[in-house]
């Protein structure tokens, strides 16, 4: 097990290297001069041309791109992600400050998505072709199709404006978590529910389920112990990917709900052409996805005994 984990960690290195190069290249290809943006913000007026050149030198933007990348990579390997052009604070510090805010939404949203999706998917599979199945399929299609900005505004209008149950936006009491969490959760919940349904249907048609039924096991146990457990393996993979996306930051939801998380930080960085921050965020998102995927893979051993047995067999 530890060897497997170590291999996965080692494999992450070239992945992250490629990702960092891609992020660097894309940021530099994007139109807009970070020096001009920075100066315009600081001076509170369109920046004078001569000053822009001076700032380009100060920020090191006048150096060849390869030199810039190699320097950045060297610093990043030492844990220094550079200084934000916009805030003049270390990128790692800025990201560190925002992580708790994003987690405050991402974790409850992921759990909520799971709590909705798995029961809905299972019920839908068990009642295939009947009313609950139709309802779930329509609801999940709607949930997966609705753009989050539209859904957010719709939820605000209903729960905050008409019913006055929760605040429109901003962090505050426990009620302030309701709308952003629900908005974030509904999309993944819809997709996961459909996914759970299909894996569940597949599992229910498998021989071992038929055998369990033939042995006279109660239907509840057949579903819970045999079908669901196997159906959850691909669901866990998909859930991991979605969780990683949530942790990496939800740009639109954080903007609308005034949540100072990583998504808003990324959006601001792109708008400001804050290259160090963009690169730092892409690297962070890459590490997050890789780590969560690794954890998901490791979690298979808990869900599926065959993985444990297989690992032992290989070890033997």
């Amino acid at each position, binding site marked *: 097990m530890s060897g497997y984990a170590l291999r996965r960690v080692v494999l992450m290195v070239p992945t992250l290297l490629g990702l960092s190069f891609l992020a660097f290249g894309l940021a530099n290809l*994007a*139109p*807009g*001069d970070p020096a*001009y*943006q920075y*100066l315009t*913000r*600081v*001076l*509170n*007026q*369109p*920046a*004078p*041309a*001569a*000053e*822009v050149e001076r700032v380009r030198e100060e920020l090191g933007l006048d150096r060849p791109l390869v030199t810039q990348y190699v320097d950045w990579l060297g610093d990043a390997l030492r844990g220094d992600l550079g200084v934000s052009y916009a*805030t*003049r*604070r270390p990128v790692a510090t800025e990201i560190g400050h925002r992580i708790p805010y994003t987690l405050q939404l991402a974790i409850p949203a992921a759990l909520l998505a799971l709590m909705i999706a798995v029961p809905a998917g299972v019920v839908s599979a068990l009642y295939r072709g009947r009313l609950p199945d139709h309802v779930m399929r329509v609801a999940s299609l709607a949930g997966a199709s609705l753009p989050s900005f539209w859904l*957010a*505004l719709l939820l*605000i*209008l209903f729960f*905050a*404006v008409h019913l*006055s149950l929760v*605040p*429109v*936006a*901003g*962090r505050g009491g426990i009620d302030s978590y309701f709308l952003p969490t629900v908005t974030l959760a509904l999309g993944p919940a819809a997709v996961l529910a459909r996914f759970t349904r299909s894996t569940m249907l597949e599992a229910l048609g498998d021989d071992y389920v038929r055998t369990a039924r033939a042995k006279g096991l109660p239907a509840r146990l057949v579903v819970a112990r045999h079908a669901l457990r196997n159906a959850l393996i691909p669901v866990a993979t998909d859930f991991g990917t979605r969780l990683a996306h949530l942790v990496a930051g939800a740009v639109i939801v954080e*903007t*609308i*709900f*005034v949540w*100072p998380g990583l998504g*808003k930080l990324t959006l601001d960085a*792109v*708008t*400001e*052409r804050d290259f160090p921050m963009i690169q730092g965020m892409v690297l962070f998102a890459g590490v997050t996805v890789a780590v969560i995927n690794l954890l998901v893979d490791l979690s298979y051993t808990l869900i599926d005994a065959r993985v444990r047995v297989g690992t032992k067999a290989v070890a033997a």
Partner: protein
Amino acid sequence: MRPAARRLIAALVLALVATACGGGSDDPNDDVENSSARLNLDAELRIGFTEDQYILEGPDANLGAYPANTNVVETLVYLNDRYEVVPRLAESWEFRAPNTWRFHLRRGVRFHDGQAVNAQTIKTGLFDRVAAKRNGGTIRATPQSAVVVDDYTIDYTASVPNLRVVEQLVHPQNGAIAPGSDHGTKPVGTGPFRFVDYRPKERITVERNEDYWGEKALLRRLTFRFFPDRNARLLALQAGDIDLAYEIPRDDVAGLESRGFTIAKSTVGAYRAIFMNSYGDEPYDILRDVNVRKAIAMGIDRKKHVDGVLSGLATTDQTFVPPAALGAAASVVKGHTYNLNEARRLLDNAGWRAGSDGIRVKDGRRLKLELVSGFPSAEVIRPSPTFLQAELKNLGIELEIVERPDSASFQDLMGRKQGDLFIEDGNQNDANVGFLPVLLLYTGAGSSGTGVYQGISAPGPRFNQLIEPALTEPDHARLQQIVATAMNEAITEQTTVMPLNGVFRIYGMKSSVTGFVPHPSFLNVSWLGVGVTGG
């Protein structure tokens, strides 16, 4: 029902009961007292602002001052809502040739930490602080610029000839901070409100300064909440989460009014204008011909644009400096009157003749232009480009709309001259009427302009000649005349810039909010006289 709503209803009921039980009185002072009694002096006003763009580090730190001005920090002089410069921490000032301004400071003023405001603390907390900024800030200060004359008199000399210092000092970035305080974490100023708390990207809270040198603020507390999304800001107002909101979208004004909210419209403080690429290379070289530029300016019905696109919440002014700032000289800027026939004649004379599909052609080339939109964002500018597309089609011009996601990519295209027309919203936040024309269009000696705007829309040597005295003219009325004449050259004669409309600042608020003065420059909103009635 939420607690805030319950408290509001309870207060209204109490107010009604109190009114019903109260007896009549012949004492004229009672009216004032009753009026004051209706104001809740313990109230907190929750304000929905746009984006949190405070800078928290280095010499440019501006927490609480810019762009959301919480009135913690004060300037020597203040820009009122008629674009006039009025005394604040300085009671008076005078120009001393060749390049010095002498300020006589108000006595008896203290910073929130108890330090006295005098020439020395103003030197340290204002001029020396600004001198540490890049280029010495807009006022071009150096560490030697400020000289203490006596306890309450200070001289300021900019590093370059700059007689616009007083007009520039109104900007909240040029506020006085208590020496030794940190403008990035806890601003200590002299204003009617003192800093309480700041949560980045979320809110900033200030409370009444009970020791304020002037009349005290009517509100106990102000909380500025940041809503980058304008729909969320609007919904927060409707839900009662905030009491007042900045930048109400024009389309939502009527809806808010019908729900009982108060809409406050400022005078013109911003503009929507088109910068024409007058120096482009093929395929962006069509507007090198001044006749084509003039034809476009004459072929757009600004009134229709105001009524149809901007919901009537704009003017047809053809300057990009607010008319109030130009004063009587505003009429010098003639602009172009809507005249389709004359516009067509100009295009005919320029050799552009109607083709088979109605689009004009010259030497086999179609009269096709690109309109770039994206400043401050394409979303804000919409649907003006579509309107212009229809208008120009009437002239036989095909217009392609190019939307850029943000101002950086917009200005990148402008810098590379890749586009024919660049539409943007801009604004005037200080009293220096020459600021925008010089910054954006001047290319003469000592130009410190952006190069980006000049690259496509510099009106040329005559404009430079006309605007140059603006840098060194001490008399404000004369300055207005100079700037207006130069702008007329750019807009009417050379038509390298085409202002479409003057734009109002629109604020929305609950009907319980009183005394709010809608400032055309939202950086300079004063919260001193704002109150809330009821509980």
